[in-house]
């Protein structure tokens, strides 16, 4: 990838020898790929509820096991008011003999289909005037790699779907913050004087307020809504960007080509767009690497409070909150989403740290 990028070749060359950066890129790529493809191949829709598999532990083996089969069979037999006896199992097909004091209605066999454990039942032979029925049932084979949640939904699929949302929100909200911050910072820096002082004073005041303050105020305006995430995060994260871009603007507008553009009669917006922003873009890109993990963290915070992404959709923050509630007994609900969230944040962070080596991009 190094040759195709027109950026500073020396920095990228050293970067490719830098193993933390390579490792983070690999982790990020792997997680992104998993999130994109995983839900398609996991075999479970993210919102499918399996009532027979609530809080199943993570395992590599397919469900149902012998115990679960037995339990499910008992349950169905009780509801049908018949006695059930398993004769043998071969190749995922169960041979069962049902017996009752009265003739068994074949329509009642649909109960098997409705469960999450069995497929459709096929009658092999009926004897004793319909009081004894032998049936073949196909066992459904399901793998829950990460187990299931308290509603019996596959955690593997949910973690990956959550990853899609978290990553998408991270990128989109960063973009929102980027746009506001760059515009505000460039205008303040270029205008200078009293306007600059006033604009930066506002930034200072807003900067001092804790994030929860914005959550309170914006929840009142939007309620529990998806948009809330973008607005709240956008409202907070543009501040750093504005400061950095303002600093860059102050130095760029001293340069000769800006003076030349002014002499040629270019308007202020044109100068900002054509000269200032492109020259600050390296710094902006470097800061973006720091911004994205912070945004993902904030998104998960908002969702943790139950204010962001709503069920049945989910994000890593929602899943971690869920895991924290179910920590007694079902640790896997916490571990897997926390692992994905932590790996992503860590990888993005060390990527950002590696990028920070370029001059003029120091974080506040």
């Amino acid at each position: 990838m190094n040759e195709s990028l027109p950026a500073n070749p020396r920095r990228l060359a050293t970067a490719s020898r830098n193993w933390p950066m390579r490792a983070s890129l690999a982790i990020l790529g792997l997680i992104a790929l998993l999130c994109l493809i995983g839900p398609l191949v996991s075999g479970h829709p993210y919102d499918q509820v399996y009532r027979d598999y609530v809080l199943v532990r993570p395992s590599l083996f397919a469900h149902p096991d012998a115990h679960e089969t037995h339990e499910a069979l008992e349950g169905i037999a009780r509801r049908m008011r018949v006695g059930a006896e398993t004769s043998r199992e071969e190749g995922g097909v169960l041979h069962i003999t049902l017996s009752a004091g009265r003739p068994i209605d074949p329509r009642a066999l649909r109960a098997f289909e409705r469960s999450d454990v069995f497929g459709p039942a096929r009658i092999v032979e009926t004897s004793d005037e319909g009081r004894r029925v032998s049936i073949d049932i196909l066992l459904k084979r399901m793998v829950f790699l990460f187990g299931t949640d308290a509603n019996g939904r596959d955690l593997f699929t949910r973690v990956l779907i959550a990853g899609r949302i978290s990553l998408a929100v991270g990128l989109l909200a960063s973009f929102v913050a980027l746009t506001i911050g760059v515009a505000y910072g460039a205008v303040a820096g270029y205008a200078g004087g009293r306007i600059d002082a006033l604009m930066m004073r506002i930034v200072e005041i807003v900067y001092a307020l804790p994030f929860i303050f914005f959550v309170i105020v914006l929840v009142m305006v939007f309620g529990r809504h998806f948009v809330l995430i973008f607005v709240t995060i956008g409202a907070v994260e543009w501040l750093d960007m504005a400061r950095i871009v303002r600093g860059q603007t102050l130095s760029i507008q001293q340069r000769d080509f800006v003076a030349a553009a002014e002499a040629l009669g270019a308007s202020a917006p044109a100068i900002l767009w054509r000269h200032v922003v492109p020259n600050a873009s390296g710094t902006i890109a470097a800061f973006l690497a720091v911004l994205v993990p912070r945004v993902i963290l904030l998104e998960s915070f908002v969702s943790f409070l139950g204010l962001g992404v709503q069920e049945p959709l989910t994000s890593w923050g929602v899943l971690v909150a869920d895991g924290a509630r179910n920590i007694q007994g079902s640790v896997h609900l916490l571990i897997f989403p926390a692992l994905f969230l932590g790996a992503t944040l860590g990888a993005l962070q060390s990527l950002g740290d590696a990028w920070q080596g370029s001059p003029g991009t120091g974080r506040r």
Partner: protein
Amino acid sequence: MLRFFLARVATAVPALFIIIALAFFLMRLAPGGPFDTERALDPEIAKNLRRIYRLDLPLMRQFWLYLQNLAHGDLGPSLHWRDFTVNELFAKALPVSATLGAKAMLVAIFAGAALGLAGAMRPGGIGARVVDGAAIFGIILPVFVVAPLLQLGFGLTLHALPVGGWNDGAWQNQVLPVTTLALPQIAIVARLMQAALRDALAMPHIRTLRAFGMPRYHIYIHALRAAFAPVVSYLGLAAANVLTGSVVVETIFGIPGMGRYFVDGALGRDYTLVMGTVIVVAAAVLLFNLIVDLILAWLDPRVRYESRPR
């Protein structure tokens, strides 16, 4: 110094007023009201409720009344917890949250500074490695992941500490929440301290002290004074972060603090309660920043002379 202090207060008070006004009007302009329920209330009852809570007056007059009451220290009756005033609710919750936050800050400052010091004394040594590792973990593991993990480890596995609850502030109940709140701040403070101290140790006046053969502690005292400035100026932000983190910590550990009023009040459109929380949060942060500014000015004379009121 007094002039510096007055100048800072002069900017903090209008900022607080603007925040109050902004929150007040934003909240009233937003759709929905405090008495919205699943079933619409009888219009007569709704009208009476609005009259009792003076929500039927013109908005400007309501704002004026609110400011008058605020000047007397009265935050008004809660619209959701009908039998309580906001003052009564806060009287119970605020000390709990304040204890938690103050302890977390103290732990963060001392543990962070100690770690940073250890890291700066021997670059590449064990201390420095711990700081680097802690910094990464402080970022990877957000508060809402650390909290349940600690519950799992110390509460459910070791049975050493209670998993939740406040129990009138018994120390066993405080250990885990305070640790959870302090951990990320420890990581940041340690990192800042280490970097600042390394820079300070490379300064010419420290080299001079070394050349004179001064004892080690003497050199470090001089270096620390220069190194404290960036750490202290971070503390304002740390306070804001602890405030945000305490909402999560209080939720997870089931602590009866301010945390639940933040979100519940906003969702239930409990106007007076939300205004109360906004004022408390903003005042706390402004106050803390004021203190930070004063310490900075005390540490570094340049700050007091250069930042004249703008």
